[in-house]
């Protein structure tokens, strides 16, 4: 991909003292030594200043050691993704500098921990300023604790950003408000040691290279997609979850293991994913709102169970936090490559794709209710970034949450019936449901083809009626399925299509494309299956639609063309190197394409 235009510097103008309303920070070193928590201290600082935040990390799939990086974007306007370049790097080793160098802004700043010597030469552009401070040595020599590198580094960084020392200390105290007083003072000492060393290294108070804005954002939540999705499930009455540890879905298991028991529920760590989905199926059969979750390889192991939900007509939410595959792939890297698996097999299901972290909450509630309505599988397609990256979102509206129990029968309703058939053929395909324990509701649930009574039958006429009945369930809810998010010029001849984590990047790209004279409209579908008319129409109505996704074969493009969208209008933009799309990548590619057409 040729770089046609230069990456956009984050905020502000390139004056002698840069002023930021949008800044990207990277903190990197060896994982597990605590230095990366500088990013979370900065996060607290910017939150205090009323900025919107987006935070992510890049961690090798091992516990301690291995290169690791934490990233933070703080901006006055919401961003929803990282920017194109890194403005400020806090590097604890050479590798950090080498990895960050290609992404550094030309007028960026590097704080380098020089405990073991100067930074590598010839790696960084000459225009980048480097402050060498022996952070690690100071922590060990003066404070006897390696871990305090974080507060020392934080002190130095606040001087670069031109934050008043008292404000910075206040933010640190707020951040550590729950730790014991003695520990608090140790951290504050470290912070002051950082300030003292900043003084000695050309970063005196009141004369900073940079300054930052005040944000003025109202109170928000800083939450990841996995946390928001888990919370939504709880609020929607979800009380049973089963999973097997796997990156990047594990946080859902841990979140629910902590919270569900407080509400009379259970989250179970199963012996494998085959067990996990069947545990959840068992719970769901009793009428409990249940969910199973995994990622790529584990989601594949669950497929027989998902087909059972479709055939036996059992309501369950299955969440797939996709990661780079195939097979074990790259566990900690982003990809959107399970769509083919999610829609495979000849049975009805709905596949939802939350648009962003906040939407994970809404969509989790929707999914939990929808499973009850269709008595079948509802799959939620998350991805590594959406699952694990945290961002600021508006507080959730808890008072507006409603539960839909679909056609679940009460004991009184069953008592009033002359007869009860579990798989009764109905117009909307949904059969009234009696859960075990109800007198008069005795029934047989099976994944085998069966007659209305639940007794196994392979009789051709019955088979046909049953397949059609199940298919009608999806048609009956189609009109209620979540519509996509749209931005931009509704009449634009050019469209951008992408789901999940790609959404915010498309939005940032569209702003810049418009400035460059290319108006686009964006559609970020929130229902992947069935393919909604709006998606097909969106493509039909445009000259060209760029389909932007994190996988190697264009699974979304295949999906929508299978749903009736004209193939020849679609141009795929694919990324499968494990790193997330940057707005600049999209802008470059699209401008180049449009210029050549």
């Amino acid at each position, binding site marked *: 991909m040729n770089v046609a235009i230069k990456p956009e510097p984050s905020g502000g103008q390139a004056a002698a003292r840069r002023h930021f309303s949008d800044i990207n920070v990277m903190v990197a070193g060896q994982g597990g030594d605590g230095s990366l928590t500088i990013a979370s201290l900065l996060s607290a600082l910017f939150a205090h200043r009323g900025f919107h935040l987006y935070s992510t990390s890049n961690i090798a799939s091992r516990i301690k050691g291995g290169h690791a990086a934490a990233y933070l974007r703080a901006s006055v306007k919401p961003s929803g993704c990282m920017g194109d370049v890194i403005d400020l790097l806090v590097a604890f080793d050479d590798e950090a500098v080498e990895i960050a160098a290609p992404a550094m802004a030309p007028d960026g700043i590097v704080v380098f921990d020089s405990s073991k010597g100067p930074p590598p030469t010839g790696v960084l552009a000459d225009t980048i300023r480097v402050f060498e401070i022996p952070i690690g040595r100071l922590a060990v020599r003066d404070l006897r604790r390696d871990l305090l590198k974080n507060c020392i580094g934080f002190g130095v960084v606040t001087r670069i950003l031109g934050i008043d020392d008292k404000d910075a200390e206040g933010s640190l105290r707020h951040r550590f408000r729950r730790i014991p007083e003695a520990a608090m003072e140790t951290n504050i000492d470290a912070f002051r040691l950082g300030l003292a060393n900043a003084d000695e290294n050309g970063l005196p108070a009141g004369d900073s290279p940079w300054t930052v804005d005040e944000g003025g954002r109202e109170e928000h939540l800083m939450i990841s997609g996995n946390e928001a999705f888990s919370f939504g499930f709880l609020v929607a009455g979800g009380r*049973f979850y089963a999973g097997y540890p796997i990156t990047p879905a594990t946080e859902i298991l841990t979140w629910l293991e902590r919270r569900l028991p407080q509400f009379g529920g259970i989250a179970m760590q199963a012996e494998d994913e085959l067990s996990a989905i069947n545990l959840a199926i068992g719970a769901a059969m009793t009428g409990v709102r249940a969910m199973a979750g995994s990622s790529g390889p584990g989601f594949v192991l669950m497929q027989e169970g998902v087909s059972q939900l479709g055939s036996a007509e059992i309501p369950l939410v299955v969440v797939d936090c996709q990661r780079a595959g195939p097979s074990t792939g790259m566990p900690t890297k982003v990809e959107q490559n399970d769509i083919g698996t999610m829609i495979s097999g000849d049975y009805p299901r709905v596949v939802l794709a939350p648009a962003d972290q906040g939407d994970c909450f809404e969509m989790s509630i929707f999914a939990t209710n929808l499973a009850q309505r269709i008595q079948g599988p509802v799959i939620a397609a998350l991805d590594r970034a959406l699952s694990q990256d945290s961002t600021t979102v508006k507080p959730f509206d808890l008072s507006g949450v409603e539960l839909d129990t679909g056609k679940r029968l009460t004991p009184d309703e069953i008592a009033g019936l002359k*007869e009860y058939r579990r798989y009764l053929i109905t117009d909307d395909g949904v059969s009234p449901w009696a859960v*075990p324990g109800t007198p008069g509701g005795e029934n*047989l649930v099976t994944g085998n083809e069966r007659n209305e009574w*639940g007794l196994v039958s392979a009789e051709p006429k019955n088979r046909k009626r049953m397949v059609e009945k199940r298919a009608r369930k999806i048609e009956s809810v189609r009109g209620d399925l979540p519509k996509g998010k749209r931005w931009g010029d509704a009449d634009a001849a050019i469209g951008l299509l992408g789901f999940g984590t790609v959404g915010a990047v498309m939005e940032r790209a569209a702003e810049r494309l418009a400035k460059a004279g290319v108006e686009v409209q964006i559609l970020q579908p929130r229902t992947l299956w069935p393919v909604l008319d709006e998606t097909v129409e969106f493509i039909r109505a445009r000259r060209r639609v760029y389909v932007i996704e994190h996988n190697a074969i264009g699974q979304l493009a295949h999906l929508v063309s299978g749903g009736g969208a004209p193939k020849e209008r679609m141009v795929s933009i694919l990324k499968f190197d494990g790193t997330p799309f940057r707005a600049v990548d999209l802008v470059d590619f699209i401008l180049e394409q449009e210029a050549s057409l």
Partner: protein
Amino acid sequence: MTKTYTPAEPIWCAGCGDFGVQGAIEGAIAQLAIPKHDIIIMAGIGCSGTLQNNVGTYGYHALHGRVLPTSTGVAYANPELTVIAVGGDGDAFAIGAGHFIHTVKRNPNFVYIVMNNSVYGLTKGQDSPTMDAGAAHGIDATRLALSIPGASFIARGFSRWSRQLQELTVAAMEHVRAGRGFAFLEVLSPCVTYHDTYVTWEGMLENLDDDPTYDPTDLAAAFARGVALEAQGRMPAGVIFRSDGGAGRKIPPAMALQDIDPARHIDRYNDIMSSYAV
């Protein structure tokens, strides 16, 4: 009375051991006077995995090998139900073997009756993991279960010894209904079509229930007896091991009956939300 499905006629070959198991389950339900709507029979896939259609209770046909996790989910989510899992030896000890170990360890409250015929009846007679031409029989799941911490009820019956089989089924159901945990009952249930073992198996069995000196609460003795019998080409029947370790456990009320109305929990939901506020 609401009319529901009419229980099916068994599809088994005449003489199949599974008839004896169904008889014992029906007899036990009647003996304990449990209403049919409070029972769910969870079945595996196989000839044995059709039993649930024949009794008139709630029934579920699990995926092949997955009857244990599914039953665990049911038992945890609604402890008021009497859950009886049934299935074949292929289901239990081949495709579902991993779950067997973990289920014994978790000790959930349900009965598991394995109809062991040493073959895959439904797929026409292939060997199962309990078949071994050399030894008396292949995997002895009763000893496998004995080796797992958490085991609380382990018994073996023979489908032709119908009185004892019903007693064992009643004992297993009482064990789970008292909240003591997982009751594993292996039934030697010959397949007359592919591997007729009525005579050989009957000759190999030593009925521990007839031995007044045998103490089924003694784990070491249970092991020793199994090993000693195997050395003679024999195997134990009756209650092999029982433990009250699981008694008195706190069992949560049926989740399905809980009030999940968001309005009722709104204060606590708000507390959770505010932990994310910035």
